[in-house]
């Protein structure tokens, strides 16, 4: 058993690269429409992908901060934000009323049994990924502290190739 795992490990190290793109899973958006997660990145623009839940206060602060700048960020770089709620059946019915009342302008997807969360190795939220225009994951970040959105946006600008 142990030798097998050792062997696999060697194989892994020799031939593998870090994850670059999003896996293919079916999630629903707030309108109940099926969205394949592999399609999220197919916009030709950078994408911010953020995992959150309605019981997570730092997550809401982060998304509120994104929303405050979203129109400006979109105009400057074309960046798209997608927020994935990991609320399970305890709170998933409250997600749409909550997100709409917040006036969030970005798309919200529902991941009620954590399939996408697990596939992305998200263990603590907020956990935010930045994808380039080709859909490759270029960076990821956990936790949100006041003002962290500015550093993230610097990275978005670098990706979009626009220097202010």
């Amino acid at each position: 058993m142990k030798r097998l795992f050792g062997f696999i490990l060697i194989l892994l190290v020799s031939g593998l690269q870090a994850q670059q793109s999003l896996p293919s899973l079916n999630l629903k958006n707030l309108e109940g429409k099926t969205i394949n997660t592999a399609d999220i990145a197919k916009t030709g623009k950078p994408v911010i992908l953020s995992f959150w839940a309605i019981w997570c206060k730092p997550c809401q602060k982060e998304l509120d901060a994104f929303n405050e700048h979203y129109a400006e960020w979109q105009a400057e770089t074309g960046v798209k934000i997608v927020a994935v709620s990991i609320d399970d059946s305890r709170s998933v019915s409250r997600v749409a009323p909550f997100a709409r009342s917040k006036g969030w302008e970005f798309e919200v997807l529902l991941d009620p049994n954590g399939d996408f969360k697990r596939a992305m190795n998200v263990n603590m939220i907020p956990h935010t990924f930045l994808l380039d225009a080709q859909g490759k994951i270029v960076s990821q970040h956990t936790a949100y502290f006041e003002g962290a959105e500015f550093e993230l946006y610097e990275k978005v600008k670098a990706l979009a190739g626009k220097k202010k």
Partner: protein
Amino acid sequence: MKRIIISILLALFCSAANAQQPTVNGSFQLDAQAYFTDAAIGITDSALAGQRSGFNGFGNVLINWGDFRAGLRYEAYLPPMRGFDPRLEGNGFANVWLSYRTDFAEITAGNFYEQFGSGLLLRTYEEWSLGYDNSLNGLRLQLFPAKGITLKGVYGTQRFFWQGYQRNSRGLVRGLDAEFNLNELLPDRESAPWRLSLGISGLSKYQRDADPIYVLPENVGGLAGRITAGWGNFTLAAEYAQKVNDPSATNNFIYREGRSALASLSYATRGFGAVVQLKRVDNMGFKSDRSQLGNALDINFIPPINRIHAYSLTGKYPYATQANGEMGMQLQLNYKIPRGSLLGGKYGTSVALNFSQVNDIARTALNDTTAIGQDGTKGYHSKFFAVSDHVFFRDFNIEVDKRFSPKLKGLFQFMNLHYDIATLQGHAGEEAVEANIALADITYKLSNRKALRVEAQVLMTKQDMGDWAALMAEYTIAPKWFVSVGDQYNFGNPGKAMRKHYYTVSAGTTRGASRLALSAGRQAEGVVCIGGVCRQVPASSGVTVTFSTSF
């Protein structure tokens, strides 16, 4: 099973047939605690019982190679931290799986997580913070025969700590689920003003009857149906599940069928959202081993629908689903008072109002000579909407979130709580807790990257441990650093000698998706609940280190 999967994995990696380059992602986490004696809060040598440390850790690797995906999850609890199930002690590969996906189908072999509808019949999931994992080990086939149709079939056995499956050591779980999204199924209805999707599932559990007294059903079947319908800003979602009689340790071996229903109606528009939700549960505990009590081998998931609180004192008395019977409702209103209005101020103000109440169901005796719930009988009668006046839980809360200036914002919350601690935490004979809780969470931005946050909370009650106050200050430098100091003070404890402070100091750093946090101090006794699963956290004094990373 693991050997077979590993062999398949090996074969896969050795084959050069697939030209695509494989990619890997994964994560690691270690939670470690060192415990000290602290006589002031009752932690003596004998209370620690020789346990000076706890280590919970895992490593998770996922491999993606074209249409193939595979995963390995290693866990080590040596020994588990205090408050986690002692049966977790051990180490090894908790999850090994392989899946293959095309546009038409996906097949998974090994350990997997699945949920039918909202989980009233089947939900397997993993919750690290509780040490809970009921994954199925078996096969899952998903078919996508046409746009808008998803069919699923699963069979397997559930994870039971580190105990492998042996013939008849626990039940087998088999299930089928079909979901139809009519907007996607019918031509040209994708952007219709209405939305409709329907689902149906069936599940069966097989467990051998070895009971010396009763003749028990070896096959326990269940059926569930669900609908989600929307028109404009309105959405209605409802699910009903029923199972045949399943005498178990949970329901005191009664031969009554189980029923549950969950329904919600919501309205959502820009700046305003409302949702009302109803739930009924009658004898719906469902485990793959009928003799199990407690947090293991649950096949289904009955969601508690009350608000999930995010602060230490509002979350001090969490609700836990009562699988044997409960009837509850919740109502939530979210409103954003627009900018520029009198109450909205310059930046707008968010207001959230939430009410929930859960009662026991009303039960009547089967006849004059049989007590309600007597084992070996059909238990009791209960009409579908019959509610008892025994209140398990009531929570009314209002939250206001307001920005005062570009630098200053605050969140204020008030909560009124009724909590039947005798039922919900097993404190037999104790009076229900009636509490009022108020809190303020203020953030002040010192610069673009530096901020100071202060949380002040107070909980007033005459029951249980009496009044609490909590104060916490946190200084953050985005995106990397935080340091915080806090104190919870049990100033109103009925026993004067028990009026103690619980200080904590924490600091941590985040680099990309890696996080290291350290904290030292006292942890008050409490309960962490997620779903129907709760973990009692004993009072402790010591140092906690958490390291996690994803790649």
